[in-house]
């Protein structure tokens, strides 16, 4: 066994362990040197990224991988902490690590003038570790633990600007909502354990029978994870917390939110994959029912998201409402693919939804970075207070234009590629879905054109004569995201073939996920 094999074998554990270990190293290194700490944090992410790359090449080529803590094999009883990595997990951890890298590059200049940065970096790395853990784990209880860690850490990060009362308020709302949600997840896990004596997803998926208690579990898991992903009408914590968190970490919090979305996918496609299409309710297969419920919530999310975003005056809150709408697009796509399980357009919809997940993270992330740059340059949050910044902030303007076009789904940027797939698949289930999706994406365009006008165009106000362009590290971070957005927009097929298609196949093909564990006994 070569060193490389060994590294790949232990990669799933290392991917979580390295940022976790690094997190607690941060206060120590902070005492030595600030710059060293920033470099160390970045290199920890790079190292994690390297392991993710190793693991990705292996998993994409050879199928799912199992990592069992404290044992070579899985023996009965099946209660072991285990990580299971399939192409879907690979897709998610790749997104998370990209977002984390960009956020850290951005933080370098953005957070420079604040104190308490040792804690900041500790929290950021912990959040990254917990998000990666949620996406890698093959065990429901483990998922709960990582979810709770990410919820505690996100809350602390949202409250980071502790001198503002609003940040505290947002953090309190976030922790109330998400800790109640997490407790319900724990309750659901207890129900599952009581029936099947197992905690890992694959075993549960195999023995699940869709009993009365399983229905309760399904509803609890989907609703809680849907809330954590930001489905209307359970979205209200999202604008509060996104709007008040430091813009440099909003990107990572988006990653954590998307991990909850991943949880929904795991629950529906893998955990309940065996039973959904067989069970009946109202003379309909349950997968159609689940799909239509998600579609209904998604449509409400899209509409409420854009309509509320149109009247927001606080820039970051406005972007957060747009993020709600974007989450709606993802749920629309996966709802369609669940409702139409097995038909050819279900696959297209699923791929479109997953690609949109990536694009949403990048586009909304880019807009938050731009909003952060504006905040950094002007110290103003309200759109009414700023004007004519295109004169002094040329690069930021260009990045904002890219973000605007991407988030509104204009060709040839990445948002168009995924929305294109979504429009051209969901209309087959019902034409109205596509119509609403198209209309709301145009409203999204109107919203961000308004932001563009308010922040960048318009006359030069006297207060902004000597506003400076954002510092270099922030420009670099924005440039990286913008570059990715353009790349995915121009070569969508490359991303779809290498990452999205395997992920979609892994979701649909849950038998493989199960047999990896069952065969590993």
């Amino acid at each position: 066994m070569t060193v490389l094999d060994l590294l790949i074998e232990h990669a799933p554990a290392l991917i979580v362990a390295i940022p976790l270990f690094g997190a607690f190293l941060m206060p120590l290194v902070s005492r030595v040197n600030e710059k060293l700490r920033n470099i160390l944090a970045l290199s920890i992410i790079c190292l994690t990224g390297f392991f993710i790359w190793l693991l990705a090449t292996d998993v994409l080529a050879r199928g799912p991988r199992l990592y069992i803590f404290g044992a070579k094999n899985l023996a009965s009883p099946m209660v072991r902490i285990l990580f299971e990595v399939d192409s879907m997990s690979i897709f998610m951890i790749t997104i998370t690590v990209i977002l984390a890298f960009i956020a850290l590059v951005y933080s370098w200049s953005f957070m420079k003038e604040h104190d308490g940065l040792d804690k900041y970096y500790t929290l950021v790395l912990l959040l990254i570790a917990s998000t990666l853990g949620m996406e890698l784990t093959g065990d429901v209880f483990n998922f709960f633990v990582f979810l709770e860690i990410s919820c505690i850490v996100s809350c602390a990060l949202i409250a980071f600007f502790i001198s503002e009362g609003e940040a505290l308020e947002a953090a309190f709302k976030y922790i109330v909502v998400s800790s109640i949600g997490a407790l319900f997840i724990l309750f659901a896990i207890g129900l599952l354990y009581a029936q099947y004596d197992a905690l890992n997803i694959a075993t549960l998926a195999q023995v699940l029978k869709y009993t009365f208690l399983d229905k309760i579990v399904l509803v609890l898991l989907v609703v809680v994870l849907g809330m954590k992903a930001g489905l209307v009408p359970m979205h209200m914590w999202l604008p509060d917390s996104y709007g008040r968190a430091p813009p440099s970490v909003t990107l990572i919090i988006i990653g954590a939110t998307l991990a909850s979305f991943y949880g929904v996918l795991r629950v529906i496609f893998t955990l309940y994959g065996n039973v959904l299409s067989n069970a009946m309710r109202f003379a309909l297969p349950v997968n159609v029912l689940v799909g239509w419920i998600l579609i209904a919530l998604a449509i409400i999310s899209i509409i409420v998201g854009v309509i509320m975003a149109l009247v927001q005056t606080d820039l970051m809150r406005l972007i957060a409402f747009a993020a709600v709408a974007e989450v709606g697009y993802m749920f629309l796509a996966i709802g369609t693919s669940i409702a139409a399980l097995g038909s050819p357009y279900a696959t297209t919809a699923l791929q479109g939804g997953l690609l949109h997940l990536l694009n949403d993270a990048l586009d909304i992330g880019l807009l938050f970075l731009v909003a952060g740059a504006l905040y950094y340059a002007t110290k103003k949050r309200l759109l009414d207070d700023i004007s004519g910044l295109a004169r002094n902030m040329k690069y930021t303007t260009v990045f904002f234009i890219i973000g605007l076009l991407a988030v509104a789904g204009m060709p040839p940027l990445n948002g168009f590629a995924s929305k294109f797939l979504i429009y051209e698949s969901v209309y087959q289930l019902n034409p109205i879905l596509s119509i609403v999706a198209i209309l709301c994406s145009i409203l999204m365009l109107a919203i961000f054109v308004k932001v563009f006008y308010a922040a960048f165009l318009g006359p030069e106000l006297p207060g902004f004569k000597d506003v400076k362009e954002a510092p270099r590290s922030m420009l670099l971070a924005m440039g990286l995201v913008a570059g990715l957005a353009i790349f995915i927009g121009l070569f969508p097929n490359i991303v779809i073939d290498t990452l999205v298609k395997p992920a979609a196949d892994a979701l649909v093909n849950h038998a493989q996920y199960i047999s990896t564990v069952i065969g590993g006994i």
Partner: protein
Amino acid sequence: MFTLESGSGFWNPLLWILIVFIAFLLLYGIRGFGRNTYKKDTEQTKAFLSGNKEPSPDEMHVKASNLYWGFTTSLNNVYTALRKMHTGNTSDYVLWFVIILAVLFLVFGVM
């Protein structure tokens, strides 16, 4: 290979970029024939206000919250309802969660 196929249609970004690039070269050339001078720092670069005296930029600036006024007023009912829904009260956030939970329990036949 570079064409994104959805099963219902196609989209080839590279082709579009090429077309735009060629058209840009051509039209930029054509545009070059036009006159590109004007008298800087004279009356003619002031904003056109039907001959009224130009107020300071602060007063002339149309604020972001006034934009799309016609659209938001025509959706006034919707906005009133949505504003009522977004109370900002944490208990209401949890209440919505409980409501959705209850509705789905009903739909799935638990209750």
